[in-house]
């Protein structure tokens, strides 16, 4: 096995155990792993942005292909950085105006079409087609969806007091919402468990002889480290008596 793979396995197993150590309590191992994660992610992102954006999408096309007009968005990007210089920070508004204007122009019609019009059409279409065939499960599902949409909308309609028929409809809407929250929670549990399984899967792999028992050795080391840290932080003397800690001046 290549040395780089072996080192990678030890680092991955160690950092996984560092992060899992939070389940015991907040500790220096966890904080080290947490800070390292933030630093490495940021460093990696900067490097990738340099190669994928600055070199590949800007320098290459401008210098080699003469696409000088790409300097315009580059300049707009640079203007955002004027936020750090108070005297000329107003220049950044030009870039933000372009971002907001372009973003809204692109997004609003597409979002209305995809997330509203097509959804309304999708909610009503099965019911409109129901007249041509026998009322079956598909039509029942469509009816349930329509009832859910309408009653939840009624629940979030705050302009009138929830009394009488409105109250009943809103109550039904609450039940639909509860079903959704339950389903969403179930899926969330599944997602989190999947992440645990993924890490455990790697830890089991790294516990093998091929990886020099990385997970086992590091688990023992982290446990010992936590014990030492616990002893140090609770201020236990070698005789087992609790020291009185003096408050900081």
């Amino acid at each position, binding site marked *: 096995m290549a040395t780089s793979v072996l080192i990678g396995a030890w680092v991955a197993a160690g950092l996984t155990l560092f992060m899992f150590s939070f389940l*015991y309590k907040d500790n220096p191992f966890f904080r080290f792993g947490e800070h390292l994660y933030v630093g490495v992610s940021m460093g990696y*992102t900067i490097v990738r942005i340099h190669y*994928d954006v600055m070199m*590949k999408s800007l320098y290459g096309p401008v210098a080699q*292909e003469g696409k000088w007009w790409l300097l315009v968005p580059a300049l707009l990007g640079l203007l955002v950085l004027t936020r750090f210089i108070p005297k000329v920070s107003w220049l950044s508004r030009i870039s933000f105006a372009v971002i907001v204007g372009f973003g809204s122009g692109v997004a609003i019609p597409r979002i209305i079409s995809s997330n509203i019009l097509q959804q309304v059409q*999708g909610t009503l279409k099965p019911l409109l087609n129901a007249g041509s065939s026998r009322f079956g499960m598909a039509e029942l599902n469509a009816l349930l969806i329509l009832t859910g949409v309408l009653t939840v909308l009624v629940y979030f309609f705050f302009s009138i007091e929830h009394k009488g028929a409105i109250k009943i409809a809103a109550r039904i809407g609450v039940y639909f919402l509860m079903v959704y929250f339950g389903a969403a929670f179930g899926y*969330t549990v599944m*997602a989190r468990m999947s992440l645990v399984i993924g890490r455990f899967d790697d830890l089991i792999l790294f516990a093998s002889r091929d990886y020099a028992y990385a997970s086992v050795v590091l688990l023992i080391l982290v446990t010992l480290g936590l014990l030492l840290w616990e002893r140090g932080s609770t201020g236990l003397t070698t005789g087992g008596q609790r020291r009185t800690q003096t408050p900081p001046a």
Partner: protein
Amino acid sequence: MRELAGKLLRLDRRAIFVLIALATLIPLLYPVGLPIRVSPEVRRVFDHIESLPAGSVFLLSLDFDPASKPELYPMAVALLNHAFRRDLRVVTMTLWVSGTGMAEKVVSGVASEYGKRRGLDYAFLGYSPGGANVIINMGQDLNAAFPADHYGERTADLPVLRGIRSLRQVNYVVSLAAGTPGVESWYVYGKEKYGFELGGGVTAVIAPGLYPFLDTGQINGLIGGLRGAAEYETLIGMKGKGMAGMDAQSATHFIIIGLILLCNLFYVVAPGTVVRSFDGPQDGPGPSTGLRTGSPQEGQR
């Protein structure tokens, strides 16, 4: 019963962590091989790829980073295996800068298993900034969105992209997404405007929110979470990470369902039992200092 409820509810929560760890570890070490039923939404993605003739263009957008690797990486492996087996022209990319290295690894790894050549049978375009705007740009001119691939080769010169000027020439797009930009960006800015068929593979957290788009046909299929990956592996007859994790997934779900039922039972039979107080500062998931039993009024907070 009330006393027992109090004792159990005051149990150090780390006992639950140990229980979950064991429920995960034991099935991973000693798999049972519980049956996996394939859902229609996963089958539709599989069927669509099956229906594509060899040489069709399949675009896989790996819109996730290592934080979602356990769920989406097995999906990527399964989809790439299927696409390469079908001899499709595979074009891959990512809209997430932090996922670039991982995406490159999975694409080149699976391609090498099938003896596929970079640039000729498949391409990894890498990352391009702009999120949803990249999709719009690809819909107008793919070479403008990605002037060069991840390795610096001019995309216009890649044989695998011959005849593909924009997304209009792509036969099927699947976005494996852990958030935004992801599946939603692809159907809002891509599918409806440029007319390609779109499938999705997502983390379990965002899967429920995409079902309405499945019903309306805005996406033709959906692979949700590790379970979805396991279903896809079942369809292509591959024993991957998804299937391996299903026993552990079932075991942990069983434990969590049991704990939820137990807590609700205690809530009914011993309503006055306060589990713990969160008034004081807490430095982690260890035992809080405020464990106590209290009056029924406090229990209803």
